[in-house]
């Protein structure tokens, strides 16, 4: 078999192998990290009370987008009613 082809084959076998190895390790590291965090920081405090101002601030800060129009509309609706 020619050199170029064998290089390509080697790259494929080896590259795919490494990608899987790396992401598999990442699965384990991530899982381990999540477990640790959940152990030491158990209660995900519910902050549902203030989503609107939060997301409004964020939408605006990001240079703006369609969401803002929605936000303004919502705000206007709210204050109008």
């Amino acid at each position: 078999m020619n050199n170029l082809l064998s290089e390509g084959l080697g790259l494929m076998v080896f590259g795919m192998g490494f990608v899987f190895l790396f992401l598999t390790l990442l699965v384990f590291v991530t899982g381990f990290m999540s477990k640790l965090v959940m152990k030491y920081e158990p209660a995900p405090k519910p902050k549902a009370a203030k989503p609107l101002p939060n997301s409004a601030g964020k939408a605006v800060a990001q240079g703006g987008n369609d969401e803002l129009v929605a936000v303004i509309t919502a705000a206007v609706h709210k204050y109008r009613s």
Partner: protein
Amino acid sequence: MDKVLELWQASGIYNISFGQFVMIVIGLLLLFLAIRKNFEPLLLVPIGFGGILANIPEAGLAFSAVENAIHFASPELMAQFANIFGITSTDPHDVLHAYHVSNPSTHAAASLLANDSGYNNGMLYNFYSVAIASGVAPLVIFMGVGAMTDFGPLLANPKTLFLGAAAQFGIFATVLGAVGLTQLGIMDFSIQDAAAIGIIGGADGPTAIYVASLLSPQLLGAIAVAAYSYMALVPLIQPPIMRALTTESERQIKMVQLRHISKTEKILFPICLLVLVALLLPDAAPLLGMFCFGNLMRECGVVDRLSDTAQNALINIVTIFLGLSVGSKLSADKFLDLQTLGILVLGIVAFGIGTACGVIMAKIMNKMAGGNAINPLIGSAGVSAVPMAARVSNKLGLEANSQNFLLMHAMGPNVAGVIGSAVAAGVMIKFVS
């Protein structure tokens, strides 16, 4: 009257070559696709426009001072260039070729000679040097993408990383395809070219541009155009493959709702990823390092003004110049080549194989886990093409069952695919550069 003649002989109409004409039409076509068909317009508008600019006859916007000098050179100057490059021929083609294969110090000497003779780099050539040849533009865009990426869905279901891994098979299969075509004598790709073409299958623009700029700059134009075009075509390319590989009942699988992810997990994830990169694949450090940095700025909550700038002003500025710079590689002599056709064909094959492998991997994972935890439709999102591929998964899920919302579930493999292709890019850079 002399002046009229001179201007006429320097005009575009007088000088335009057939290749340039075709490339300007291709540039207009890209603009049409971007504006009317909404093909990744943020990139394809600047790329298409840059492509037109690059092909304006006699303007030399995409050429270096040396290339411009050789184009217009007097016999004496040509002899001086030949002397610098150590060749005896003073034929422009030979001199140009010698320039392209010469090393950086010869380049520097030739540039000074061109400057001394009054020739300068074209505007787009300067943009390319600063933005792409230095590597900075793709990295800064990757930082911005990191700052826009929410790893929540991935953290809630880390196993979807396997889907992102599997979909990268498209990359490596395409490498093999490219060397195979060369083997058969149909094309003439080096292993570097093959690797750069393969990365189209990563479905990730900045990664493709970064890798191509390192491994195969002369193919960069075609590779970038192929990558962004196929990313825009994902809603057409993927569904048939996904339908062919799944049964109706598989497509109807409902996935359990994702758990809540704490702020701390989101902060620690980019750091874990960075450490893993540092320990295992230093060659992927620039790409994944900037990506993780952008994501950390997003999640840490104390540098919002930096994160906002990375997501807005900075990424927009860099996108404009990146696009124009990519366009500079669409000059006729580089793009109008059989190789470009090969790249376009191999690119779509890469997308197809990646999509298929993602779906198949999902089915394998269901088999191995002995359950129906994963709807195989989300496997296709592993190719990246964020967020288009995830939306396609969601759409096919809804077709099968109008209550089956897969979007969030598909975001996991979708961002995993970004990591996967950056890792694959690191492997390529390590072994073939």
